[in-house]
């Protein structure tokens, strides 16, 4: 059985190459999933676009 838990580098999070979902810095892979489906991105991507109410 292949490794199922992964941790991203400092300041990085995982991002799904499949659907663009931004994840955290730890992965518990699904039973048929592969780490190749994920890339590491800066955690700043977790922030959305902000605006102000009027």
């Amino acid at each position, binding site marked *: 059985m292949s490794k*199922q838990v992964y941790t991203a580098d400092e300041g990085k999070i*995982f991002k*799904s190459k*499949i*659907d*663009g*979902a*931004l*994840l*955290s*810095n*730890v*992965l*518990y*892979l*699904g*039973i*048929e*999933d592969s780490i190749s*489906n994920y890339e590491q991105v800066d955690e700043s991507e*977790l*922030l*959305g*676009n*902000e*605006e102000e*109410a*009027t």
Partner: protein
Amino acid sequence: MYQINIKVNADGTLSTLDGTLRLGTEQEVSRTKLVFEIDHTIEGTIHYVKFAHKKATYLYRVSSSNSLIVPPNVCRYPGRWFISFISSDSTISGSTISGNYAYISEPYEAVVVNGIFGINNESEELKLLSNLIECSNFDLVIPTRTRYIGQNFMYKSPSKFSITLHEDLQTIGERAFEESNIQSIKFASDGNLSAIYDYAFQKTNDWKSGVVIPRSLSSWGRYAFHNSNVPSIIFESPSKINTFPTYSFAYLQTLTYLELPKGVAGFSGSGQTISFCSSLKTLKLPNTFSLVIQAYHIRDNEELTEIILENGWNCSANFSNCNNLTSSSMVAMFNALKNLTGQTSKTLTLGSTNLSKLTSSQIAIATSKNWTVS
């Protein structure tokens, strides 16, 4: 007629023996005449006086005798006015001077004094009538055949009221009830309401009951209930709403329960959608979601302990900004996930704080169904 003499000086100033010009008392008519003595070096034969007040501005032409009776329109608004004398070689239209010469004096302070002419003591009967007319503590029923509630319909209405909407209504306009004292709203079941526009119920803080949104609605405005104290919002299912925009549910600080309807595909914006609802405890999401929920969509809801995913949930979601989820809530989420064995994996992100509340065997409920937990 009382006469005020005003010198129009070549240096651009006006001068009079009075300090502040007393133009009259509220509601007076034709009591005061301004007479202008114009310095001989000032050119132009066409003269005007501009009156400026925070509620109105007027431009009046001065007669050939260089005088002007203070117009009733000016005396309609008590308080501070500024007047300016204008001399030109052509007529003036609006704020446009088309000629080759214009003298415009510096503004001079004037005042219309508050009057008591319009004040009358009300009888009890008049007070009751006034309550009826001004609709204090009333039930407002929007009649049949009314299709639109326009912008600012009850904006800042000071009276407390409840409203009943009939099935013909199609839209509720922008800011229709903003800052009003609406206490409850009843939508028609099986009606035609399709849109609630931006800010429609923003800053409404007298809600006595929650709101049930009819299934006919297809468009939900941004900030619809922003900064209101509505205790709950439930959408009838199935709904025609496809997506909720950014700031759909922001700063609803007494909202404790939010249920989104079956049929919704997700959140359309790239910013906060359910946020700063500081009392929100339970959020229920339908399994029709197909757009990825990112961390920024649901954030800063400090009391949110339970996110209920409908059975068969099949959409990647990130709830890592909901750090107070209980372990039982998360296990219930895992149990609700669709089994993706033999299909492409999806992700459920809970964040390290939430993950620390779970055991390996609990996480395995999700991973064994081919969901990646993060």
